[in-house]
């Protein structure tokens, strides 16, 4: 998709000015690496892992003397609670840090199961074709038509809210894009010489899948996985917001937004900061995914 500037000038009939900023070669080579999004993601992940070392305040500790304290840079804020406190006097910053842990773990576990199921079905559908392909593609189509949020609400109320339920629900959502993309990729790989040769030599289906197809689709899977992580985090937050995610006292980003909703007038920070945390995480993931795609395979189409 990279079009030389001179060529584009021919097509559109005008020269396109590239901002001076990027003309400096040094910055240009810097631009190849997703520095900003990489740094943001790295710090969020390390916050999530090192949680207890970063913040000393217990995210669930209630303090009645510090109800809805503002962030430290506003009047009445103190450095004890850098991002303020919520309606029960709990530290917003420490809840954010521990919320990152919950959100990331949930999204990652769901993602891994999604990758496994999705890639496997995609390989099978693409390789065998015919009836099998038809059935798997149809299942994916039906699945996409689900009003997922409502079904998820019902299931989580029926089975009981919690870690397990949430991960299960997200896993049922996570696998479809992998099937689609992997299947498409396998369809082109199938007719490559090395695959045909391997078949002629009598390699088993399993061996061809493992040795030739899986490495071929791995780029696509990584790219889809970054985007999918972002959307899983969003869905997780929405389910928690509706009360179908992680049960209340635990700090999850969606919970925090929901809790702060009633206090918009007096304490906007309770809802605003978790949303910003979500934005930073998901936007960085998107940028990273874009970058990986351009880096590994410039031919791959935009996903969604």
């Amino acid at each position, binding site marked *: 998709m990279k079009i030389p500037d001179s060529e584009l000038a021919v097509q559109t009939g005008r020269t396109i000015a590239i901002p001076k900023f990027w003309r400096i070669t040094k910055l240009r080579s810097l631009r190849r690496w997703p520095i900003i999004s990489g740094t943001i993601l790295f710090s969020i992940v390390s916050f999530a892992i090192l949680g207890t070392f970063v913040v000393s305040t217990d995210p669930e500790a209630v303090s009645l003397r510090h109800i809805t304290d503002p962030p430290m840079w506003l009047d009445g804020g103190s450095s004890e609670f850098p991002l303020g406190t919520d309606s029960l006097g709990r530290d917003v910053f420490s809840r954010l840090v521990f919320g990152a842990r919950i959100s990331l773990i949930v999204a990652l576990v769901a993602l891994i199961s999604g990758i496994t199921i999705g890639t496997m079905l995609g390989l099978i559908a693409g390789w065998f074709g015919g009836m099998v392909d038809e059935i798997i593609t149809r299942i994916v189509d039906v699945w996409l038509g689900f009003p997922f949020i409502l079904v998820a*609400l019902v299931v989580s109320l*029926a089975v009981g809210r919690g870690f397990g339920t949430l991960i299960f629900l997200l896993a049922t959502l996570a696998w479809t894009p992998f099937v689609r993309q992997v299947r498409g990729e396998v369809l082109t790989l199938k007719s490559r010489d090395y695959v045909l040769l391997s078949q002629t030599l009598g390699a088993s289906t399993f061996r061809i899948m493992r040795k030739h197809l899986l490495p071929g689709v791995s780029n696509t899977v990584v790219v889809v996985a970054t985007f999918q992580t972002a959307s899983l985090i969003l869905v997780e937050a929405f389910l928690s917001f509706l009360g179908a995610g992680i049960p209340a006292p635990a700090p999850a980003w969606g919970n925090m937004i929901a809790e702060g909703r009633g206090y*918009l007038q007096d304490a906007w920070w309770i809802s605003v900061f978790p949303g910003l945390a979500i934005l930073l995480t998901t*936007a960085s993931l998107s940028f990273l995914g874009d970058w990986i795609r351009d880096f590994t395979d410039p031919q791959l189409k935009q996903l969604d």
Partner: protein
Amino acid sequence: MTSILSLLVVTSIIFFVSRVYGDPINNFIPDEGYGLQPEEIKKVKERLHLDRAVPVQYAFWIGDLLRGDLGEDLRDRHPIAPKLRERIWPTVQLAGLAFIVATCVGIPLGVLAAYRRGTPWDYGGRLFAVIGHSLPSFWVGIVAILVFSVMLKWLPSATQGIDGINWKNYIMPTLVLAWLPMAGYTRLVRSSMLEILDSEFVKLARAKGVSTRGVVWRHGLRNATIAPLTFAGVLLAGLVSGSVAVETVFAWPGIARWGVTAVYSNNLNVLSIVTLVFTVFYVVASFLVDVLYVYVDPRIRYS
């Protein structure tokens, strides 16, 4: 065929799973039972078919549905049909408006970003697309309420029931709902437009002396609209879950919020109908997209 299957699967999941956490009869008759005798409770159960096994109940429900009987609200015993008619209109209005706004803003923005590649327009468009994809729409709604209702006091934060909607009520929910598809359009149109501007037939048109504007809008746009259509499924699913978010945040009197409250109150009949409506919407819309696809892209003909 697939669509009918999908309708059946969705409704049966709702039907079976919602039974796990409680008999809907408890909705109808509180624990004390209003002093009802066990025989009378049994009679009510029989009337609602709640005494049968769940699969049989499901069969009854499908049968009623095919005869045009949507059943009754388990909470207040009123028939569901008029309630549905009352609530579906606000949802359709909101989703339709949002769709129009998204199309009218997103596609030109994508074209502009591709056409002025490398300029602030492009960077702005791409940044907008990424941010639009990364924000949870319920949070955007809350922040919009914070800024425009609480701080500036320009717009109302919620509606006053179904009759209390005036034009000011539409602004925030429409924009918040349009946000996500708008970002999707911008992104898709931009990338496919870039590809098309690079293609042979556009170069030929340029060589023949077609003006820049003619190339971009006539040759480019027509082809660039194919890409968003390919992903219409994802977009439609996003519109459904987006309505749930927006209607919850803005207390919109539509069916999505009705469905959410029905989940909390174990109002099985309402919930089944709402889920069914959403699935039907999805199925019909994807069918329309398929038809539109053939119209926009004559290279595809169904055999």
